[in-house]
Every structure is written in structure tokens, then in C-alpha cells.
């Protein structure tokens, strides 16, 4: 049967067909849907982990115990999981083990566009890269076989356009895999004396993998009409090259990209007049090919930054551009993403922005769309606040640091960040914006929500209890929709010489409420409207930044889009004329 699938759906299907037993992940664009889809196959045990390091460690445990296992993450997630990655590169596996890295060239939803292919080389493990959904599905199975045959974890590297593009997939059936019996082995316990031996094996393994890379059908030649241009490419970049050159070039299409099949590349190069490497981001293949003494064209023509597309490849290599319609695009206004109508973060940030001499350290969740001065990485908001506060205090600036992060981020890596501020005693205010779900990536359960990926009830970890256990002396939980409560809460939190923790607890405006949510928060949703007789056109409500509000510059009146409004009442609280009222009242 044929079906249109995204690369992520195809990976999930491939995992099911290949008999995978265990899958773990922390959500992150563009990887999130891999686990969401794996969860629909009940033959696979699947879960959300609090972070990527934990997800990979759990998958390593599953592999050592003899199951086929995978951990999926976005590119920056692999930085978090790098510690176990490098060591499992030494130990090897028992059941096949895949580390799926979804990179984001073009930064559609990320803070950097790092090229994770370098991890395969650095950790000396095999790497596969699919270029469409069919390959994504098929390569999962092949990758697991390679993992077991060569005793290596495999880096399965995808990019946004492979993850999120749909293409046709021929479906197969599940082949049940028996769990491989667990036998206690030295390699699973890499103390220095054992690791020295393992390192030798790793170097031998890389040589064997390169031999495999030269032989495997994952790396194949497609001859074009002539042999003037030969293109080496992998991943979605191959599809772009194919789009531009069609039959007018020959291709060495690589699916197994570390170690590179250097003998095959050399042979291909010798049969074409000009060798071109078409790859997104870094010159990963090009550098290796040039180091092997094979002349080629690469990054001197193909851009190093951003994602590629057929236009960019065409212009770079052929010097031609598509004709476009001529019009003035300068009048188009920017449309940045914003906090949703009814977002519980809005009230908090509205009040926070009024405080003077503060530095807000945040990160990359939805709340990162609010005001912030500094953002580095998941969970960094608290520890960055701590370091900055120490120096501000030394310099006598009087500035106060406020770290903010969401509930999911707190569980991800905010707890150690909080501990840092507590242990080393900073006068920082640490705010957990607890919207009862993982928001930015589209509503995944987390350790605080009381539910698992499967939808089954799970242990719900209490953030205030954690803060207490960490040693925080001042802890307060508030309703962020009540602006007075927020203002008082922030003032309270800035009144100490030791760390204070403020928890804003209200569900994400888009969350499908659980029965516990309904008990706690009630059926609060409603629609507000503007009483135009009372509205004086002061625009105070507009300043809350709610996308449900609009202002008519001719009538000088505000209005509310009833399709978006959920009646959070933040705008009603800022209106000096009480002109915002419930519909039907």
C-alpha cells in the first residue's frame, strides 16, 4: 500500500516494521512527530523523556538489554545527549541502536543551524542520511542491521525538509524481533582499562565501516546523459540537485555518509569531467574529499549558511535565476509569531515589562516570544541569571536578574540550573511559567502534567516541591491571568537576598484540558467584546499584544476577534474605562 508520509511519520513506520522495541525522545522541532507517530504503534514501547540525554541513556539501556532501540531529538538536543553518545560510541551495542538527529538548516524554529554530521565523525560512529520519506522508512531498518552487524550506534541524520515534507511511501509489515539475550560484558562498563581496548576496536570498526560504505547500495551512481558533471550529494540536497540538473548530470547519491565511501567517490570522480559536491551547511563531505586529494567544487559556489533550495543550487552552479513577477514587496509588514490569544504568559510579561533595572534571562520555549534580554539554551535561564547577578552585584549596578522558563524546560534542565543559583546563593528571581504542557512543540505531555506519551496517567511531579527540596526558601504560586497577583508576586520575589521562586500556574490557551485541569481551573473559557460607547481609543488593551485585539484607526475604537478570544480578561484589567466586557452580558 502506498501512503503520503512526512519523513517523521516514515521513520516511525520504519521503526515499527523493523521490530523496534523501545523509543524515547524529548520533543523539539523538527523531530517531535517521530515519537508522536511511534506512539500510535502499540508494539513499540515509547515515551517522552525529560531531556535528550536521559532519552539516549534510556535507549542505551534498552539496547544493552537486547532490544532494538532509538532516541530522537532536534540538533541542539544532541548537544545535551553528547556525553552518552561518545561513550556508547566506544561500548557499541547489543540490540540495534539509533540516535536520530533532526537538524534545522535555515533555522525555521531553532537558535542555531549546527551541522550534526560532525558528531558522527567526532564519535566515530556510522551515519545514514535519507533524502525522502521512502528512504527514511527503509533506512531505519538498514541502520538497525548495520548497528548490530558492526556493533556501533548509528547517527540517523535528517533535516527539516526531510522531516516535514510528505512524499509517497510503500508500506511493509512488521517483522517481530526477538530480544537478544543479555550477557554481562566488559564493554558495557568502560572504565579506563577497558576503554583503552575499546578505543582500538573503534578504530578498527571505522575501517570496516568504510569498506562497507564503499560496497553498500545505499551509496549508488546514477549516470546521466553524459559525464561532464558528476554530483556527489546526500539528503534533501540531492533532491535539489536532481531538480536542477535532471539527466544533465551524473550523481553519486550517498545514503551512508560516515565514513564516506572514498574509494567509490574516487572512482566516480575519475569518470566525470568535473566533480561537484552539493551539500547543505558545512563542507562535511567536501573537506574529506579534498583531503583525500580529489579535486571538487563545493562551498566556493554553494552557500555555507541557511538551507538550500533548487533556486540557490541553480544560481550557484548555472548562474541562472527563474523569472519572477515584478512588484513592490517593500510594503509587506513583518508577521512575527506571537503569544496566542489567551496565553497565560501574557499577563506575566505585561507586568514584568513595567519593572525597571531588570535583566530577563529566558530561553527558547513559547515564553521566549515575550520580552527577554538573554537566551542561550534550554534550561539556561536560571543559571545565566545567577552568573549575571553575581557580576552585577560586584559592579554595584543595582540590576536584578529574573530567570524565566516553562514547566517542560524546568524538567528538561532547569532543576540543576535552579540548584546552581541556590547552592551558590544568588539574589535572583526564578520564575517557572507552568502552563501545564509542553507548548512550543505542540502539546506534548511532560513530567508535570500527570500523563504519559501513551495518554495513560503518570506520576505528576510538583514544581514547588522540587524547589523546596532544592533548598529554595521563598516559593510562591500565582495565577498569571490576575495582573495584581502578578505584580505583587514579582515585587515579592525581588525582595530577598537569596533566590526566590515564583510559579505562574495556568494552562496553555490551546491545551485540551485533562480532567484534573478542569477540576483545578474550572470551565473558564468565554468571549469578551469592546463596549464601543465606553472605549476612548487609548490603545491600552492593544499594548498587551494579544492577537485577538485590533484597532480601527478611523473610528478610534478597539475590537476583539470573537473567534480567537478565550476570555482571559488580561485586556479587561488594563482598560481604564472598563470597556471590555463579557459577550452576552
Amino acid at each position: 500500500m502506498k501512503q503520503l508520509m512526512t519523513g517523521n511519520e516514515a521513520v516511525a513506520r520504519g521503526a515499527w516494521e523493523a521490530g523496534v522495541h523501545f523509543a524515547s525522545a524529548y520533543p523539539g522541532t523538527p523531530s517531535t512527530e517521530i515519537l508522536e507517530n511511534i506512539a500510535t504503534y502499540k508494539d513499540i514501547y515509547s515515551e517522552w523523556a525529560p531531556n535528550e540525554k536521559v532519552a539516549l541513556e534510556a535507549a542505551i539501556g534498552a539496547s544493552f538489554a537486547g532490544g532494538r532501540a532509538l532516541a530522537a531529538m532536534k540538533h541542539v538536543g544532541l548537544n545535551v545527549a553528547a556525553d552518552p553518545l561518545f561513550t556508547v560510541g566506544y561500548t557499541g551495542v547489543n540490540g540495534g541502536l539509533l540516535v536520530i538527529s533532526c537538524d534545522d538548516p535555515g533555522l525555521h524554529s531553532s537558535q542555531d543551524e549546527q551541522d550534526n554530521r560532525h558528531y558522527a565523525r567526532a564519535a566515530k560512529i556510522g551515519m545514514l542520511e535519507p533524502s525522502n520519506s521512502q528512504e527514511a522508512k527503509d533506512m531505519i531498518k538498514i541502520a538497525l542491521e548495520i548497528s548490530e552487524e558492526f556493533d556501533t550506534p548509528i547517527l540517523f541524520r535528517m533535516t527539516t525538509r526531510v522531516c516535514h515534507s510528505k512524499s509517497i511511501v510503500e508500506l511493509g509489515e512488521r517483522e517481530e524481533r526477538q530480544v537478544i539475550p543479555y550477557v554481562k560484558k566488559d564493554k558495557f562498563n568502560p572504565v579506563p582499562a577497558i576503554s583503552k581496548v575499546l578505543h582500538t576496536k573503534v578504530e578498527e570498526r571505522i575501517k570496516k565501516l568504510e569498506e562497507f560504505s564503499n560496497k553498500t547500495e545505499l551509496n549508488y551512481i546514477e549516470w546521466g546523459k553524459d559525464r561532464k558533471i558528476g554530483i556527489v550529494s546526500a539528503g534533501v540536497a540531492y533532491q535539489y540537485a536532481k531538480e536542477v540538473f535532471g539527466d544533465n548530470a551524473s550523481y553519486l547519491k550517498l545514503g551512508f555518509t560516515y565514513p564516506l565511501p572514498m574509494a567509490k567517490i574516487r572512482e566516480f570522480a575519475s569518470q566525470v569531467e568535473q566533480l561537484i559536491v552539493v551539500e547543505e551547511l558545512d563542507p562535511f563531505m567536501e573537506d574529506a574529499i579534498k583531503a583525500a586529494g580529489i579535486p571538487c567544487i563545493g562551498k566556493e559556489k554553494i552557500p555555507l549558511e541557511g538551507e538550500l533550495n533548487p533556486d540557490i543550487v541553480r544560481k550557484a552552479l548555472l548562474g541562472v535565476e527563474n523569472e519572477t513577477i515584478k512588484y513592490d514587496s517593500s510594503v509587506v509588514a513583518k508577521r512575527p509569531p506571537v503569544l496566542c490569544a489567551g496565553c497565560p504568559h501574557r499577563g506575566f510579561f505585561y507586568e514584568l515589562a513595567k519593572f525597571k533595572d531588570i535583566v530577563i534571562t529566558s530561553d527558547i520555549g513559547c515564553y521566549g516570544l515575550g520580552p527577554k534580554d538573554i537566551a542561550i539554551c534550554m534550561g539556561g535561564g536560571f543559571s545565566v541569571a545567577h552568573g549575571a547577578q553575581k557580576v552585577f552585584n560586584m559592579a554595584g549596578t543595582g540590576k536584578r536578574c529574573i530567570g524565566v522558563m516553562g514547566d517542560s524546560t524546568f524538567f528538561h534542565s532547569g532543576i540543576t540550573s535552579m540548584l546552581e543559583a541556590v547552592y551558590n546563593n544568588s539574589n535572583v528571581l526564578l520564575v517557572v511559567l507552568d502552563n501545564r504542557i509542553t507548548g512550543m512543540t505542540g502539546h506534548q505531555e511532560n513530567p508535570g502534567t500527570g500523563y504519559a506519551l501513551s495518554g495513560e496517567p503518570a506520576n505528576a511531579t510538583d514544581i514547588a516541591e522540587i524547589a523546596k527540596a532544592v533548598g529554595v526558601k521563598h516559593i510562591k504560586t500565582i495565577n498569571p491571568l490576575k495582573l495584581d497577583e502578578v505584580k505583587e508576586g514579582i515585587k515579592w520575589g525581588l525582595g530577598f537576598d537569596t533566590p526566590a521562586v515564583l510559579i505562574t500556574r495556568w494552562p496553555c490557551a490551546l491545551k485540551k484540558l485533562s480532567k484534573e485541569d478542569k477540576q483545578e481551573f474550572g470551565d473558564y473559557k468565554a468571549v469578551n467584546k469592546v463596549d464601543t460607547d465606553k472605549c476612548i481609543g487609548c490603545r491600552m488593551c492593544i499594548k498587551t499584544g494579544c492577537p485577538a485585539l485590533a484597532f480601527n484607526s478611523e473610528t478610534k475604537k478597539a475590537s476583539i476577534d470573537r473567534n480567537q478570544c478565550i476570555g482571559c480578561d488580561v485586556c479587561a484589567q488594563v482598560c481604564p474605562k472598563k470597556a471590555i466586557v463579557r459577550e452576552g452580558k
Partner: protein
Amino acid sequence: MSEVKNILLCGVGGQGTILASRILSTALLSAGYGVKMSEIHGMSQRGGSVVTQVRYGDKVASPIIGKGSAHILVAFEAMEALRYLEGLAPGGHVVVNNYMMPTATTLAGQEEYPLDAIERVKAAADTKVLDAAKIATELGNAKAMNIVLLGALVKLMKLDNLDWDAAIRECVKPAFVELNLKALKAGMDAVA
């Protein structure tokens, strides 16, 4: 079935561009076309500008297209038509929804929303303007606006003979099938 056709759907996060393109690609697949579709998740869901690309034909390589390549641009919001107009091939069609959504920057008074966006699009390309919100509201639910626009696209791309009934049944909840079928027909009629 030889030449690859390219379709661009653009709008604002939450307007249902992704569902419309899913229905479209499902019908194309059932009709035997090679199909690729590209969408972006994540930040774009938070009221940002969104674009989906659908390509179909005999052999489709790249899931995305570049500038000047789309045979048709369907804009769910007026200014978004102007933003993505460079994706249209000269001679291509535009379907634009007569629906304006302010942006965070225009609401804050940092820049002006171009109220003449539709006029500008009309001046640049062959354009059909639809009041999809009005049509969908008359059918009973403003949210079916996306399927009204899909209907216009279907008609203009001469895809009326595909099995839309089955595609809609596959992609939407049973309770919304009838509404969406009506919306599709209304969209087709609006540009007939």
C-alpha cells in the same frame, strides 16, 4: 501526466493551510500522481506567516520550489499574497481571500498594514478575489474558509475530476465532512 505542477498555499498560522494541502495531496495521490508536499511546523504555528508547497506530476524531485515557479498561489490572507507573490511563475494564477489580519508590528504601530494589498496583487498577476469567510459563514462555519479556497484552487487547476469526496472523508472528522464538501463546491463555483 508529465509536467510537474507547483502549488503554493500561504496564510497565517491557525488558518488551516495545512489541512487544505493535506486534502489536496491525498486526492492527488489517489489519482496516481507523484506528489510531494512541504510544510513547516513550530514557530509558524504562533500566528506567524505560513506557507505550504504541493508539487505533483510524473516525477517530483525537490519537495520545495523556489521563486517564480508556482502555477498557482492561494493566499488565505490578503497581505500574505503579496509576501509570497515572488513564488508565482509569470503567467500564473492567484486566488486571494478578501480577509485581512493585522500583525503584531502593525498593531503596535511600528509599521502600516498595506490596505491596498489585494489591489497590488491584482495589478501584478491574474487574480481571483474570494470572500471565503463570508461564503463559509453562510455555510454555517467560518472555519471552513480554508476549504472554500481549496475549491477555487481545484477549479483553476482543472482538478475537478479527482475524488474530493474520498479525500475529505479521509482527512477530516466525520462531523465536518458535509460542511467541507459544501465549502469545496462553493469555492469551485465562486471561480467558475
